[in-house]
């Protein structure tokens, strides 16, 4: 059954604060084989003008994951998670995510469209500090494959 386009514009409650740690950044940076010292060494990051080690650009997906799950598992939206494929992803960084940040995510459904039996859902997650400073915007387009697609 196609998703109801009336859910476009729906916003979800803010997440619990996510505490960004040096160790989680290190773990993520190692998992992607990164060598940039700004991910690992606070002094190297400070020499570049950052407060502490910074996170790789795609780390925002970890911060926003719980929030995106509230959309995917929204019982009213009735999205079949087993049919979801990640279509595209975009991150805008107002500043890099930095160790010590306490981040809150808010998810919004920007669009729902249907084409050739598939539904396309664009979820925009705004990531801010607990003090309200906007840090990053993550946009995920999810494709929900239709029963016959």
């Amino acid at each position, binding site marked *: 059954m196609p998703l109801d386009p009336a859910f476009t514009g729906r916003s979800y409650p803010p997440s619990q604060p996510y505490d960004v740690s040096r160790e989680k950044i290190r*773990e*993520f940076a*190692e*998992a*992607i*084989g*990164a*060598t*940039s010292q*700004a*991910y690992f060494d606070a002094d190297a990051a400070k020499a*570049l*003008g*950052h407060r502490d080690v*910074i996170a*790789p*650009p*795609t780390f925002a*997906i*970890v911060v926003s*994951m719980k929030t995106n799950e509230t959309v995917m598992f929204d019982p009213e939206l009735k999205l079949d998670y087993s049919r979801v*494929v*990640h*279509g*595209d*992803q*975009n*991150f*805008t*960084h107002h*500043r*890099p995510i930095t160790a010590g940040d306490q981040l809150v995510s808010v998810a919004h459904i920007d669009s729902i469209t249907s084409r050739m039996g598939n539904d396309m859902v664009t979820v925009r997650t705004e990531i801010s500090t607990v003090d309200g400073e906007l840090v990053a915007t993550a*946009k995920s*387009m999810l494709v929900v494959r239709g029963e016959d697609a």
Partner: protein
Amino acid sequence: MTVEVGTELPALSVRLRRADLVRYAGASLDFNPIHWNEKTAKEVGLPDVIAHGMLTMAVASRIVAEWIGDPGAIVEYGCRFGRPVVVPNDDEGALVEVTAKVTKDFEDGTVKVNINAAFDGKSVLTGAFARVRVS
């Protein structure tokens, strides 16, 4: 740093093996079994276990981060997930070859870098780009 349109970034080759997928699953908290379990992957019609699209995207970001020196200069990064990177259960894994080129000067201190990530001779990310602060 002066950067001209047309500048090619130093290329990057990354080999992804099953162990890398498991490590990324843990680090990213994305435990979808199609990224580590052959049985599940084949049940949903995939040829074998595939890498997380987000892992390929993250690996491709390294070409820009390592070139620019300060990864905090990447102000935007986006792509579409065109094809899966299939990772067999052997020592070879899958070789992802990343190339990138400066394609546009926004004339506000940022440039556009187009990124190509290829596996098996075919592009796996579509329209991948980063907007990078260079001054």
